């Protein structure tokens, strides 16, 4: 029987106000939050606020640089780049959000169910997930595009399915750890049912990890969705989307007019960097256990 001698230094450290956690994200953290807020605003209101019709093409303006109210100039087909960026935020950002949301929902459900019931149920679900593991997200999305035709929906669903085993595996580990905590056992002895224990005790205690996973996944989803659109298998040109814009702008870029591709790349990189920074911070603090 091991006798654990508790460490009051650590204990006193822990009892310091948890507000510290928020203030620790620093300047980069606040910049990240600002970028994400801006991206969300664009995703929701971009198509309303954009100054021009993103699909209005005037070939006489093809590859013309910024002037007047056309702050980012025109693309190879003479369309206003700023308007296309604002319009494209919707599919790029919200699409990624839905992918992350679905993957997290599936992953969390599987994780908690396998951790709770264990045994054969866990073994068979885990075996199924192992098979799914063999399909990298991009590959699944390409196959989905071949089967259902290229579209945001098929790419998004494929990615969500491909991501869910990853989420499930990470969260299952956390859920198993939480399941092994004696407070769960104590409440089982009190006669609490599985549903109450999972929903009211287990789930909230891994929620910070779930949020962190969701955030990290959102970054992945944005990159992968944009990549699939870049390949021509996701959002279809001429619809504005940041991934599509990178691809559309490539011809101009190779001719020495890089603004279209580079703007879209910059938008993607900024949001992804902000999201992954925050995601990592959340992840780290979710491992800074509460107890």
């Amino acid at each position, binding site marked *: 029987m091991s006798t654990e001698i508790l460490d009051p230094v650590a204990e006193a450290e822990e009892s310091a106000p948890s507000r510290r956690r928020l203030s620790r994200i620093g300047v980069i953290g606040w910049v990240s939050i600002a970028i994400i807020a801006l991206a969300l605003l664009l995703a929701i209101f971009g198509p309303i606020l954009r100054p021009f019709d993103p699909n209005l093409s005037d070939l006489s303006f093809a590859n013309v640089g910024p002037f007047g109210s056309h702050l980012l100039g025109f693309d190879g087909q003479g369309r206003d780049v700023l308007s296309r960026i604002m319009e494209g935020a919707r599919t790029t950002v919200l699409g990624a959000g839905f992918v992350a949301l679905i993957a997290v929902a599936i992953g969390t459900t599987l994780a908690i169910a396998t951790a709770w019931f264990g045994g054969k149920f866990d073994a068979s679900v885990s075996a199924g997930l*192992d*098979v799914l*593991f*063999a*399909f*990298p*997200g*991009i*590959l699944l999305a*390409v*196959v*989905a*595009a*071949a*089967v*259902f*035709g*290229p579209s945001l929906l098929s790419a998004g669903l494929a990615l969500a399915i491909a991501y869910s085993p990853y989420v499930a*595996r990470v969260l299952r*580990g956390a859920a198993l750890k939480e399941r092994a905590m004696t407070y769960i056992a104590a409440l089982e002895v009190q006669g609490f049912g599985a549903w109450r224990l999972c929903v009211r005790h287990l789930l909230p205690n891994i929620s910070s990890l779930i949020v962190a996973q969701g955030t990290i996944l959102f970054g992945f989803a944005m*990159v992968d969705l*944009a*990549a699939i659109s*870049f*390949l*021509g*298998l996701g959002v279809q040109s001429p619809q504005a989307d940041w*991934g599509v814009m*990178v*691809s559309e*702008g*490539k011809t101009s*870029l*190779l001719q*020495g007019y*890089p603004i279209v*591709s*580079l703007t879209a*790349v910059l938008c*993607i*990189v*900024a949001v*992804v*960097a902000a999201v*992954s*920074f925050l995601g990592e911070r959340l992840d780290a603090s979710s491992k800074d256990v509460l107890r």
Partner: protein
Amino acid sequence: MLRFIARRGAMLVATLLVASFAIYGALYLAPGSPIAALTGGRTVPPEVMAQLEARYHLNEPFLTRYWIWLTSALHGDLGESIPLHEQVSTLIAQRIGVTISLVLLTSVIIIVVGVGLGIVGALGRGTVDTGVLFASTVSAALPAFAAAVLLQFVFGVMLGWFPVLGTGDGFVDGLRHLTLPALALAATSVALVTRVTRTAVREELGREHVQTAISRGLPWSGVVQRHVLRNAAIPITTVVGITIASLIALAAIVETAFGLNGLGAYLVQAAQNKDFAVVQGISLVLVFAFVITNVVIDIAYALLDPRVTLGSRAQ
């Protein structure tokens, strides 16, 4: 060891069977007949139609067609690309070299730069570490296609140092053509490996057994080599392996961006053209490579960590 490999082998076969069935089934259910792709939408006489159907087994029930396809696949016959009138296996053989070279070159970059920078960052504190962290944060946010576009613009269009499109001829020219694609493909992965390495080394530095080694008066270099790096090698190997495995699918993006004649780019084209035999063939090859890589990771992991008994799954 043998039992472990046998078990992993069985799992591999099962995974491939399920995967092949899933891919085949999905494509079977796909709307639109392959004949339509073949005929380009023109109406053909019914007898020609019947002939085509018989040739491609299109009139058989699903399971029979799967069985025919599977058994011939086992003999190396992955069917025929209907639009190109060529054997899929031949097409794959022509293109696989480029993909393998690309993945290998990228892997070398990832291991050398990623692990190297990670160790330097973890051991050298202060500005060195901050520099490594900054570099990895920037490159982590650079997805392959974005990196491709940036590299093409800077090193191709502006500086003219490297070609931006095509595969090139011969070894040296081929390498020149692969440099930018490999860098683009490596960008995110290098950052990931750097970070994991840095964290793993840092974590190991804080372990109690390292404190024991220090308390025994061992010189710092010995402590680092014999304990810190040796033990950190376990998580690092795992993440390097997983990263390399993920390149197999990601190569498609870079190949498309740089106009490389590899498997991935071809898969994308085939998906656009609904060339199902090719999609099936290449997907299976990629899944196979991915799963094999994972088995290798598991074996490496078990060899590095004596606590993992071979046969229990490495997480």
